[in-house]
């Protein structure tokens, strides 16, 4: 009987060893291990999040593009050149004539105009950036028009810096779609949205071969791509939510690029000579948000105490090593108007924080509820809780998903992080410093300053100016002024780190460059 039992176990073990050798990914295939959660459609007009932006950016071309290593200089893509009228009201783009969609249809200015109109008329998240310039469903058809087969005219409904408009055209949501093909699949006036959720109709270097939500997305190279056939015949984005598993697959060579790898696994991979970790700066920050509806937190000295209550240096070398770098200005590093140095504007000083609390009327310290925005910021919140205790702040940490509560101003102290896509300080300033209406009824949940319940008229004016101003030197001054006001007012958004997004690559993968605006492109990727 014992023999029978051992035989059974041996057969099971043998089954596990009768496999062919497990091969690494082939030389002409790029395998990306990522997290595909929450991607419900691959329609450019209905997306603006990080992972899906990368997928879409390889199915669809934009009119213009930005290199990952130069976020200031717009480069041609479907538009080979463009000009702005003297009054700054009209942008005229001339399209290349050798671009074709995967259907074989030629890319025309009509397709480009319709793609922009479609985004605005659908009014989904993809319209977030381009709608800032005043385009609306009832004016976009008149303002965005094809003059002839290769000439597109964009007339601006209000005075806007045209670079900002062009930057927004480089975002993945404004990928140009094949009007004829998409309209042939339209159902119930949905602009072909349902069909595009799991199909592609672009002129990009890749077409969608297979899409299983939360599992896998497979892309085939387009041999007739106007920019030349990509080296990778196939790219696969695979859902690997468990970081330990992803790390093992990177080490084994089954996965070439890893995204959303956890801090501990990044540490382990950093010592592996077969791996390269690319820390891509992001357009956002890690911050502490202080609700101004709370009478204690309304006091400037209390807000200032928070600046000195967090030992950010202690975590910059470990949990934040790959996800952010110390930065305490509201203007992202390297952008126009950014200070040369803003990595140590406030130090951890528990004694000073205690003194500030005492001056504000809290000699025995202050007790508040602390929430992370979600699971990703929990370690950060734990670190804050520990270091704030010595500073007289007793923070009761309640973990969970608190972004919805933050958007509804139902919180006391929250620790969060942010991201943006427009590579201009205007985008970040809008997020962090703009609030035109502080009433509850306004529900301006996309503005963080509204979420914290503060309105600063001077900042609103400056942000508005930065959108309209065309002169770079003047804009630089505007942003510097903005930063000065923000730093001097003990803002209810206490910024500590600028975000970075780590991409892990096997060393034999070349020319894969994670993009700050998430439009990472695979066209030039090769494997040695």
């Amino acid at each position: 009987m014992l023999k029978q039992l051992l035989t059974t176990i041996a057969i099971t073990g043998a089954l596990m060893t009768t496999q062919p050798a497990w091969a690494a990914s082939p030389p002409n295939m790029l395998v990306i291990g990522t997290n595909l959660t929450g991607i419900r459609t691959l329609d450019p007009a209905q997306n603006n999040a990080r992972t899906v932006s990368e997928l879409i950016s390889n199915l669809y071309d934009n009119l213009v593009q930005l290199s990952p290593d130069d976020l200031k200089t717009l480069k041609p893509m479907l538009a080979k050149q463009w000009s702005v009228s003297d009054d700054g009201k009209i942008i005229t783009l001339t399209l290349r004539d050798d671009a074709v969609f995967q259907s074989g249809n030629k890319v025309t200015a009509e397709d480009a105009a319709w793609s922009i109109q479609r985004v605005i008329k659908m009014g989904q998240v993809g319209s977030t950036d381009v709608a800032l310039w005043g385009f609306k469903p009832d004016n976009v058809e008149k303002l965005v028009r094809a003059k002839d087969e290769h000439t597109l005219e964009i007339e601006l409904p209000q005075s806007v810096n045209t670079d900002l408009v062009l930057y927004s055209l480089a975002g993945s949501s404004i990928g140009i779609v094949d009007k004829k093909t998409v309209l042939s699949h339209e159902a119930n006036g949905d602009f072909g949205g349902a069909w595009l959720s799991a199909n592609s109709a672009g002129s990009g270097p890749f077409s969608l071969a297979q899409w299983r939500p939360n599992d896998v997305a497979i892309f085939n190279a387009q041999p007739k791509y106007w920019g030349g056939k990509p080296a990778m015949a196939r790219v696969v984005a695979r859902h690997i939510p468990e970081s330990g598993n992803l790390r093992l697959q990177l080490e084994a060579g089954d996965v070439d690029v890893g995204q959303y790898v956890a801090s501990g696994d990044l540490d382990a991979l950093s010592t592996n000579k077969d791996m390269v970790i690319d820390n891509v700066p992001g357009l956002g920050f890690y911050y502490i948000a202080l609700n101004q509806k709370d009478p204690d937190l309304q006091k400037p000295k209390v807000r200032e105490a928070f600046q000195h209550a967090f030992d950010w240096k202690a975590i910059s070398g470990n949990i934040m090593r790959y996800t952010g770098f110390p930065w305490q200005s509201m203007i992202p590093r390297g952008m126009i108007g950014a200070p040369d140095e803003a990595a140590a504007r406030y130090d951890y000083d528990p004694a000073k924080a205690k003194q500030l609390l005492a001056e504000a009327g809290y000699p025995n310290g202050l007790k508040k509820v602390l929430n992370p925005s979600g699971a990703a910021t929990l370690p950060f919140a734990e670190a804050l809780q520990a270091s704030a205790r010595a500073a007289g702040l007793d923070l009761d940490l309640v973990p969970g998903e608190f972004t919805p509560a933050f958007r509804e101003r139902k919180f006391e102290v929250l620790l969060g992080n942010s991201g943006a896509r427009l590579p201009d300080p205007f985008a970040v300033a809008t997020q962090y410093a703009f609030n035109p209406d502080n009433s509850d009824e306004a529900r301006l949940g996309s503005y963080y300053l509204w979420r914290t319940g503060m309105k600063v008229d001077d900042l609103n004016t400056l942000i508005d100016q930065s959108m309209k101003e065309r002169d770079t030197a003047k804009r630089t001054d505007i942003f510097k002024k903005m930063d000065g006001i923000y730093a001097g007012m003990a803002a209810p958004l206490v910024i500590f780190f600028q975000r970075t997004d780590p991409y892990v690559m096997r060393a034999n993968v070349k020319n894969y460059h994670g993009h700050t605006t998430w439009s990472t492109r695979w066209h030039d990727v090769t494997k040695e």
Partner: protein
Amino acid sequence: MVSADLTSKQESRRSQAGGFADAAPHPLMSLLRRLAGRVVAVVTTLLGLLFLTFSMGRLLPADPVLAITGPEVSKEVYDRVYNELGLGQPIWMQFLSYVGKIATGNLGTSATTGQPILTDLMTIFPATIELAIIAMIIGAIIGIPLGVTAAVRRGTIIDHIARIVALAGHSIPIFWTGLMALFLFYGKLKLVGASGRIDVFYEGLVTPMTGFLLIDAAIQQQWDVFYNALGHIILPASILGYYSVAYISRMSRSFMLEQLSQEYIITARAKGLGTRKVVWRHAFRNIRVQLLTILALTFGGLLEGAVLIETVFGWPGLGQYLTRGLQMNDMNVVMGSVLTIGAVFLTINILSDVLYRILDPRTR
């Protein structure tokens, strides 16, 4: 839940078995009546379960709109999606309209995959069933002999081993075991595949027919794909199977011990029958029915156990689907998954009930 009354039912059946029944109804009628009663009970339970799940979902802090739009959405877009999802109606109305749709076979659309729930389930459920079936086979072919042997050789080394196996299966987190097994068998020994049901370069070679990848590959004689898929399923199924070994072996042992102390066994032994014959031909025959119930319960448990193992192994099945639905407050996904698991329990219950009656003459 639904099947919790099975063991107590055995007891009542056993006590009824010896009595005389006067004017007993036709056995087929009685079986049909019992089945109808069971179906009504389960449907009621399912409705209650749905209502509970629905209410709890509404208490979660996660916002289904933000799950779709991302946190930086403007008021206009937020409101548009909010209305598209029908979240503006009162909760009871949302629930009623949901149940009404279910009655017409419409489980709604997932907020996070954009697909009809039914389409999603048809893609992912076979992956979980395939995993659970192989896990159960592994669990049964190891667990039953192990339990029986432990009972027969009570107090010996094999009994202690069985106990340690059972204890470890109850105390070591499946998540940790999964990662360690991946590290060893995939990371170090390169014996198995890592993530998903198949290596990416085999994607698209097999046309989905049954949804069961191993079967589809075998039907289409794609043996490379078959072996690759086998290499992917064997590790998560073995781990899942191991956790059921613990339970199956413990239960087999106690059933067998109960039988071995019966008079007919002592008599058989006194007559000089060999141990193997006594155990497998006499005692085992009498615990088959109980084991069937245990295996049915185990199968339901495996569906639940798949939640963590599917996350570790990136297995695109129901467990992962449900977890994500909960995380993102995608209520249609949560409810659809709960319904599916409930329906599986219902099916298992009814099947085990029927088999019980076929295998146990005393219940006829």
